[in-house]
């Protein structure tokens, strides 16, 4: 087989993948960028759509809410996942049972979890019944502008931590036992073992979890759509809900495209920053 025909054969095998990438990824992205640059009712390019969304209180609010949400939800989920993974990596009795219990919410569709939690968090729902039984004040949860975002964080974390835990747990089980034996001989206490062996060895799985979790949380949509539609008073109006509303409810595809471009740019920027932060001193990640 000549070199040229080998390349052709390779190309033929790659073609389905390349065509899919082009049709399903690159082409829609190009269309979105193109749409975002054409103001409604015009056929010349301009930045009007961006000017419109950046003076739109609804869009600006959703950017703010999304950033607040991410700053809280990402560290929280990763810390809990890490703690759970450490716990599940010890010799607890019935370990298989506990792992299953923690992972179980992953098997339930996000929308179903949202509906069930929505009922439980109703002002006359199960959670308040428990609070009252324990002698506490009932709370308003999703119906209060001060508690709704926290309630959403609770719901998505309940779904998410088990999932992210499995990646960290896999990473923990890859750490050679000999490293722990060595530092124990050197007199390291449990905190030092965690700080100087476990954490550095977990760099790879943690980087993956951090990046994937950030992206997943940027794109949270179903619980918002089902439970609050962005309210009360815009307090849970995460950016995907705003984009969806612009595109499919108020039929403003130009604003939706502009918002999508902004969203992708912000996600890319944050992910790049995260990769840099997680890089080791010698330049390898």
């Amino acid at each position, binding site marked *: 087989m000549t070199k040229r025909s080998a390349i052709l054969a390779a190309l033929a095998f790659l073609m389905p993948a390349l065509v899919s990438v082009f049709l399903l990824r690159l082409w829609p992205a190009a269309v979105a960028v193109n749409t975002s640059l054409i103001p409604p009712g015009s056929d010349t390019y301009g930045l009007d759509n961006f000017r*419109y969304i950046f003076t739109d209180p609804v869009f600006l609010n959703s950017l703010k809410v999304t950033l607040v949400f991410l700053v809280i939800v990402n560290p929280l989920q990763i810390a809990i996942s890490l703690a759970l993974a450490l716990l599940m990596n010890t010799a607890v009795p019935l370990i298989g049972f506990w792992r299953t219990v923690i992972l179980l919410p992953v098997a339930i569709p996000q929308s179903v979890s949202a509906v069930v939690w929505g009922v439980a*968090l109703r*002002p*006359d729902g199960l959670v308040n019944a428990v609070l009252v039984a324990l002698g506490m004040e009932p709370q308003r949860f999703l119906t209060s*502008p001060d508690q709704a975002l926290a309630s959403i964080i609770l719901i998505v974390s309940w779904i998410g931590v088990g999932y992210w835990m499995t990646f960290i747990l896999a990473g923990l089980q890859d750490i050679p036992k000999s490293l722990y034996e060595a530092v124990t001989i050197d007199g390291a206490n449990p905190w030092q073992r965690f700080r100087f062996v476990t954490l550095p060895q977990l760099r790879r799985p943690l980087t993956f979890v951090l990046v994937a979790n950030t992206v997943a949380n940027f794109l949270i949509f179903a619980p918002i759509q089902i439970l609050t539609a962005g309210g*009360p*008073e815009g307090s849970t109006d995460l950016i995907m809900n705003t984009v969806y*509303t612009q*595109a499919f*409810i108020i039929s403003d595809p130009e604003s939706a495209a502009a918002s999508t471009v902004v969203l992708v740019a912000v996600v890319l920027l944050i992910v790049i920053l995260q990769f840099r932060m997680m890089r080791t001193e010698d330049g390898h990640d």
Partner: protein
Amino acid sequence: MHGMNRRTLMRGAFVAGTALLAAGTAATAQDKTTINFLSAQRDEVIQPMIEGFEKAHPDIEVIHQSVPFNDLNAATESRIGQGDTSIDVLHADTPRIPAFASQGYLLNLDDRRDVIEAAVPNAVDIEQVSYDGSIYAYPQWTSTQMMYFNRKILEDAGLEMPSDDPESRLTWEELLDMARTVQENGVKYGLTFQQVDRYYQLQFLFESAGAGSGLTGDDMLTPDITNEGWVKTAAWYGDLYENGLAPRGVTPEQTDDLFINGEVAFMIAGPWAIARYDANPDLDYGVAPVPYFEGGKPSTPTGSWSVAINPNSEKLDAARAFAEYVTLDPEGVYLSIAGNPNTLVNAEAYKKYAADMEALTDKIGSAIGIISHETQNTAAGRPRSRGFVTFETIMNRTFSDIRNGTDAESALDGAERQLKRALGRIK
């Protein structure tokens, strides 16, 4: 139910089998015109109409394409808007007709005005399918709202049953007194709206208070929701929840259960709720006309689905035949509610619908009397605006905020500012 499912399944299998056979002998099959009907209804709702039509027109085959309600807008816009000819007939939600008609997505039906007006004599129903003085869809169904009450709860509280006579309807003031009494008597909630926070179900409160629909101007693109009547009525709505008379945090899907379980005494809901309530033999309920504000006028929600034609369709004759069969031919119209108890606008078919509904009168009061009266006399449609969907979306969120305790005046101020921007983009 089981038997029917199996029968549907068998029929499906038979059709599939026949289709396979037909594919093998396609060359000998006779020429058939195939048209596509796009709707947000389940297949069970549409199939009876299609079967009836195909029997009457053996040379035309109708294929139903069902999309979720929230996607119908997007589907109409992306497909008909791009000149797609693969949709011939479509279901159009009446408040969305101005937006679609103004963009040229719907065929102008003025040449059939005489026939349509003869079959559908109520002017409100014609207005619902019109934009800019022209008719753009065949009216098919309509809707109204009634007040359902739980007889047992009222009896236990020593209250009189509300009358089913529209002339002696309750005022909101009287109703709230009754609601408070049942709540003091141990019932969880006094009243609820079936579709909490939705403009469709709350517009009539503002109309009854004389505050207007919320949109004004020649093109109905100017918001008017901060006048005294709007603020007062919105505050009244918020108070229902602030005082615990009505439930916070409940979604529209959950309200029927509250009524069926006897957790709420009064329920404002559409006639279609009868199907669900009647399926619960333990529920002893009755119907009455919806209340009005003292000093105001009675008003009720209305509007539903209509049938429109894609102007790009290459089979206009067949499309027209199908659209007219399901809206103007009493037989087809009646079949259109075989799988879904909607109220009809076609005068002939309505008689048959009324006779069916009459059978319920002994048990729950004259629902058909209320429906007939309200659709003829008190119906106030949603504003005919190209910006209706934007308006509705922002209003629904505002009602939700008010229900959750946001001050009515500041919520409406915020909504008006947002509406001015968003509707300004449409202008």
